[in-house]
């Protein structure tokens, strides 16, 4: 299990987005700390209040036709496989 650096939610190791705050986990491990410091300096809460319609729509991607492919790719290669050719049409 992987803990989200932004909200602390425990995610599966192959999750692309955090199940708690929807943040892209690859991005969060790269940049969250820096952004949290910047947000603090700008007197903002460390975590953003994202619009609910965005959070809901983002969740739908987890059920989309490429979700399985992406999870497996991340699990196998990290994100080295990103951008590779794959069919996005559901059979």
């Amino acid at each position, binding site marked *: 299990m992987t803990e989200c650096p932004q909200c602390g939610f425990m995610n599966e190791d192959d999750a692309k987005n955090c199940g708690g705050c929807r943040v*892209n986990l690859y991005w969060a491990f790269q940049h969250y700390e820096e952004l949290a410091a910047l947000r603090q300096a700008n007197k903002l809460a460390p975590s*953003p209040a994202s619009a609910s319609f*965005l*959070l809901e*729509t*983002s969740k739908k991607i987890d059920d989309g036709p490429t979700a399985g492919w992406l999870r497996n790719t991340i699990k196998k290669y990290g994100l080295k496989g*990103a951008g590779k*050719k794959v069919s*996005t049409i559901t059979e």
Partner: protein
Amino acid sequence: MLEVLPKIAQMQASYALGKPLALPLNLTISVSYRCNSRCKTCNVWQRPNDDFTIEEYDKTFASIGRAAYWFTFSGGEPTLRKDLPEMVESAYRHCRPGIINIPTNGIQDKIIPARIERVLQAAPTSDVIVNLSLDGVGEKHDIVRGVKGNFVRAMRTYAGLKALKGRYKNFTLGVHTVISNFNIDEFENIYSFVRDELQPDSFISEIAEERVELDTVGMGITPPIQKYQPVIERLQDGIRKAEFNGVSRITQAFRDRYYDIVKRTLVEQRQIIPCLAGVASAQIAPNGDVWTCCIRAESVGNLREHDYDFGSTWRTAKADELRRSIKAGECYCPLANASYTNMLCHTPTLASVALEVGKGTAFSMFTANHQGKSAKLRSLPVINAADEARAAQDEKKEEIEAII
């Protein structure tokens, strides 16, 4: 540009009815998610790649015909596709758009100018606008964009593109800056650099926002209004102080209003004017999914499953449901692309722009005889403010010397 006016009435009627009476006049074609940047404000490069072929685009553009006036070929990095000029040629042949907009990160400095030249040749009567992304100056740009040496390469690309200006009258070279929490403190530096050094035909700044397309939801990259407001006011001040001619006067008047909308959207967190995404504007994802917009990135249908018939994809039940949701105000955003179409279809905004442009034109005609050397510079937007100030000073100096 006047040919858009009858389409506006169709768009307004479609919005009122909740059913499309015509195809959108503003289309964004995302040609690939592949990208050689690793921006701190975008994760689009992680998306799987299932790009349309040129044949698939040709069938799609044929189904759209002369409906769309404004095309944006975006990405990912659109210039990574070798067949970008062929795509533009196909869109031109079938749709004859008035405006073609292409953003670029400028990384492939040895390739991009030649590829854009072929684009310009492929669409000789369209206004082709290429916007170079600039999110910092020097190393700061590289840090935000995640690629070492990006700034130097982008500058080489810019020089290569600028060299095309003399040969292609239909070419507008712009600079586009995304302002996020990562670079907002650098804005003044970026603005001065663009104004004094690059001197592009146009400069637009957009606020970094959370988009489903870019997988940036939950990231908190959007700067707070307290910090963004002075940035917007700086941009608006530049627009209001400069004088423009012809089409530039109209686009700058819309740009000024766009910045007002952004400010209010951030504060009020609602649609400030009705959003016609899903009616007047749409996006085609690289795999043929049709979206009402890239903010929600919800597919209304896939072109491959509709035999590449855009109209059929556009009239699905899912599309109607999304139109209803947007009209009900269940979402809001400051997305520039959709905002310009929204303003065009919003009668009060259109009327106020027409009034302002009319006033400006009358004033220019009245003062035409009093203009000096600096008037020559006034066909260029915002970023020539410094040149104008210098030219005005020189003029005054000459006048004083003449009196003495």
